[in-house]
């Protein structure tokens, strides 16, 4: 029998309901796996007591025939989500010791749906990073390794702990958040599925804010079906978030028919970047062929402003972050620097924030401060917002022309080595988001699906981008792609 912790959400759910397994057993299996996963550094706060309590409660509900969608399913929660009474630090020293007195809407929704929390997952500090190397908890290690090479690889970021944990079967699924690709890029690096829903689908209440106009939570799972199940449980209208959409949540799983006959899939020519590895190019072409074979019509499309998405993002996201992170000042929670005699309030702020924020966060906060400062607001921030309007319009035009979804590579490369980019210009690291960031700027849903292995044995993913609020249709297309790609590889256990 397969290890219980390697089950998908759907399989585990069915077994729980059939009485083949209990949530307590599932949870214990996962907790053991978590305990033995120190080398991955994915789980950073373990909550076995909460998990066992929730598992027992779930078993009781199942026994009573009252099992909601996620009942008894053990998951991990990204450290960016505030979880009541449990450390929630956004992987930052500045939130050292912070235990929220409240539960984020998304994690509460999951608990209401019966989910079991195993603990908090590592990530890039404040979700700023693409390699999970900016965390106060240290790097997360990808369970995947290159064939015949023990060098530790990045799981991507910022939801690197989530990706690593799901890929290594430490949990059945995990929450992620995505501001510029932070669900989709690590999902691709770890050979799992992740969806960033339409902006406004998941409540942002209780999730530590990075860039408010871009942040969205989403599931990171082993299959497309699992993403459908978990997304449905996570999302929904929240009156506490003014940007949350007052829309009914469809039954996403029921929309997974695998039938995409007659769907029009766009291939954007601007995503064919100079120097793109041949393997990525081939994977992309193969993906198009698979969808065509499944009955979709493949059309070439143009998204002319694609090139400007990344620079626009690196104005908008740091600008918003510089303001969102101003609240970390050492006054009400988290870290406060030890002060020297004679230090006043300004010294307290400056020392606290210098000690509390890591270099990447400091860099982005300062860039954001600069682009908003007097005299530069129009030149940088307003210009970037105008470009954002154009980027969104590119997509609107394509959808208006009848395109149902857009197929692109998920990342420009497979997972790279930890430390490999240490000396690189920050801008080089930012290029990881080149295929994913447009989706955040346009507020669209985007899903990545593992579609193959590269020559070094590392997973590669493809991304599908859908129309706003059409996550169900998008997931169905992803499901067809998943079926056709037949990706079943798992990392060999070395940890």
């Amino acid at each position: 029998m397969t290890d219980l912790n390697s089950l998908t959400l759907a399989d585990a759910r069915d077994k729980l309901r059939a009485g083949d397994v209990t949530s307590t057993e599932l949870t214990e299996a996962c907790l053991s796996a978590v305990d033995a996963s120190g080398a991955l550094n994915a789980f950073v706060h373990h909550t076995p007591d909460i998990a066992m309590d929730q598992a027992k409660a779930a078993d009781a509900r199942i026994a009573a025939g009252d099992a909601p969608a996620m009942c008894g399913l053990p998951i991990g929660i990204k450290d960016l989500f505030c979880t009541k009474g449990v450390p929630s630090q956004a992987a930052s020293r500045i939130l050292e010791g912070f235990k929220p007195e409240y539960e984020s809407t998304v994690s509460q929704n999951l608990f209401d749906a019966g989910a079991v929390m195993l603990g908090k997952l590592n990530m890039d500090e404040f979700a700023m990073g693409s390699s999970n190397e900016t965390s106060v908890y240290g790097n997360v290690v990808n369970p995947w390794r290159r064939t015949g090479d023990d060098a530790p690889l990045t799981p991507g970021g910022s939801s690197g702990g989530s990706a690593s944990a799901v890929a290594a079967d430490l949990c059945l699924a995990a929450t992620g958040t995505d501001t510029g690709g932070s669900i989709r890029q690590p999902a691709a690096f770890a050979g799992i599925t992740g969806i960033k829903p339409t902006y406004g689908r998941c409540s942002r209440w209780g999730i530590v804010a990075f860039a408010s106009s871009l942040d969205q939570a989403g599931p990171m799972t082993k299959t497309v079906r699992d993403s459908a199940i978990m997304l449905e449980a996570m999302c929904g209208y929240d009156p506490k978030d003014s940007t949350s959409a007052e829309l009914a949540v469809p039954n996403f799983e029921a929309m997974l028919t695998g039938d995409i006959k007659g769907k029009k899939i766009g291939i954007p020519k601007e995503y064919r970047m100079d120097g793109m590895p041949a393997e990525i190019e081939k994977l992309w072409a193969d993906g198009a062929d698979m969808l065509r074979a499944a009955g979709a019509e493949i059309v070439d499309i143009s998204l002319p402003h694609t090139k400007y998405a990344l620079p626009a993002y690196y104005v908008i996201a740091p600008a918003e972050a510089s303001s969102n992170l101003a609240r970390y000042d050492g006054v009400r929670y988290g870290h406060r620097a030890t002060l020297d005699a004679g230090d006043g309030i300004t010294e307290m702020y400056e020392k606290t924030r210098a000690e509390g924020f890591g270099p990447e966060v400091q860099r982005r906060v300062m860039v954001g401060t600069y682009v908003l400062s007097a005299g530069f607001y129009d030149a940088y921030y307003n210009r970037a917002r105008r470009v954002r309007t154009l980027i969104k319009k590119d997509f609107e035009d394509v959808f208006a022309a009848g395109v149902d979804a857009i197929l692109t590579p998920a990342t420009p490369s497979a997972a790279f080595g930890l430390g490999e980019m240490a000396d690189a210009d920050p801008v080089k690291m930012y290029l990881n988001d080149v295929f994913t960031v447009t989706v955040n700027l346009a507020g669209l849903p985007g899903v990545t699906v593992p579609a193959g292995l590269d020559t070094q044995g590392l997973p590669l993913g493809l991304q599908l981008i859908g129309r706003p609020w059409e996550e169900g249709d998008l997931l169905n297309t992803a499901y067809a792609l998943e079926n056709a790609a037949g990706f079943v590889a798992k990392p060999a256990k070395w940890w």
Partner: protein
Amino acid sequence: MSIDKDTAARVAKLARIKVEEDALPALAQEFNNILGFIEQLNEVNVEGVEPMTSVTPMRLKRRVDEVSDGNQQDKVLANAPDAREGFFAVPKVVE
């Protein structure tokens, strides 16, 4: 646009992040690299284009005027590095 050491120091001050004097030139250089990258935006013709205000436009939600929150001094202060007599305590502020 080139950022010098003084500008870097001013930005750090504005962001309330202490940066040691000897770290300023490297910081200025990093800013310049990032801003150089951002400067690509100048290639785009944005004439007549409205800056985006909300990516998924909808009517701003409103609350009714009721007291539905508060009365939780203990919870508000629970995480404070220094709380005294119901207040947050900070180094003396000179006005």
